[in-house]
């Protein structure tokens, strides 16, 4: 047992960094297969376009610094404009930058930070207030996984080979 009372405890970050590295690797395998000529394709008129969905997956890793380093996101105070990649290379460059910043942020976050509350609001209207541990696990990580799952269906419907994510797909990764 350490007698130091100043040592930072980083159990949350250790677990989350391992998870982000794993999920980012498979997300990148999906993103790098999307040809720019398919960016405007959508499976249903109410669906997001391939570009919007892929950019959203890449974008969400980048929510890590604003979650861990601030106490709220207020849409009334920002002019939110999603990034618009023109090429697959643009998309990957944006993704890689967001993942690197996410991991760097977590390396510098101690366990106590994860218990602080974080709020998403639009001025007076509060969408939620939750501990940062839950914002990271649910609103960032699960949310990425949710949209990456949609992305694999977009790949499938365009006859682009679906990578193995957690197990074999019909195209790759036979066990």
């Amino acid at each position, binding site marked *: 047992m350490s007698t130091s009372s100043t040592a930072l405890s980083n159990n949350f970050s250790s677990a989350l960094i*391992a998870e982000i590295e*794993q999920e980012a690797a498979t997300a990148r395998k999906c993103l790098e297969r999307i040809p720019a000529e398919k960016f405007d394709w959508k*499976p249903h008129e109410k669906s997001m376009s391939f570009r919007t969905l892929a950019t959203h997956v890449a974008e969400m890793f980048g929510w890590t610094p604003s979650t861990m380093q601030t106490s709220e996101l207020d849409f009334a105070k920002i002019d939110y404009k999603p990034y618009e990649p023109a090429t697959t290379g643009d998309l990957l460059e944006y993704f890689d930058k967001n993942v690197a910043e996410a991991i760097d942020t977590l390396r510098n976050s101690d366990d106590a930070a994860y218990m602080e509350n974080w709020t998403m609001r639009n001025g007076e209207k509060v969408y939620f207030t939750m501990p940062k541990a839950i914002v990271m696990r649910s609103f960032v990580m699960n949310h990425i996984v949710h949209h990456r799952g949609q992305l694999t*269906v977009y790949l*499938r*419907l365009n006859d682009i080979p*679906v990578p193995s994510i957690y197990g074999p797909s*019909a*195209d790759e990764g036979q*066990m």
Partner: protein
Amino acid sequence: MLERIIEETFDWKPHEKSMSMRHLVVLVADMFGWIEMMVDADELDFAKGYEQPKPKTTQELVDFFDAKLDAGVKSLKNANDAVFAEDWTMRNGGPLSWTAFGLLAP
């Protein structure tokens, strides 16, 4: 989401290589049951056999989901932090095939 899936669409799939609606949705429900398996057991061995249940109605599907979720939550309530640092193995018979986070075993 599961309760909105009507039986008439259980066999539908968006592409010939895709899972059917039934297969996909049973997998989603069943995965909540993996919590119990991962917390209370040390491995899953495919060589010991696994058969996916085949619900015939939306109600059967929702009941299956509820049972798996309850079992998962119960396991977590009884688990302490040390359990999460233990290794868990997925294998097919004798040789070790896979460990957590996709690291190939030596």
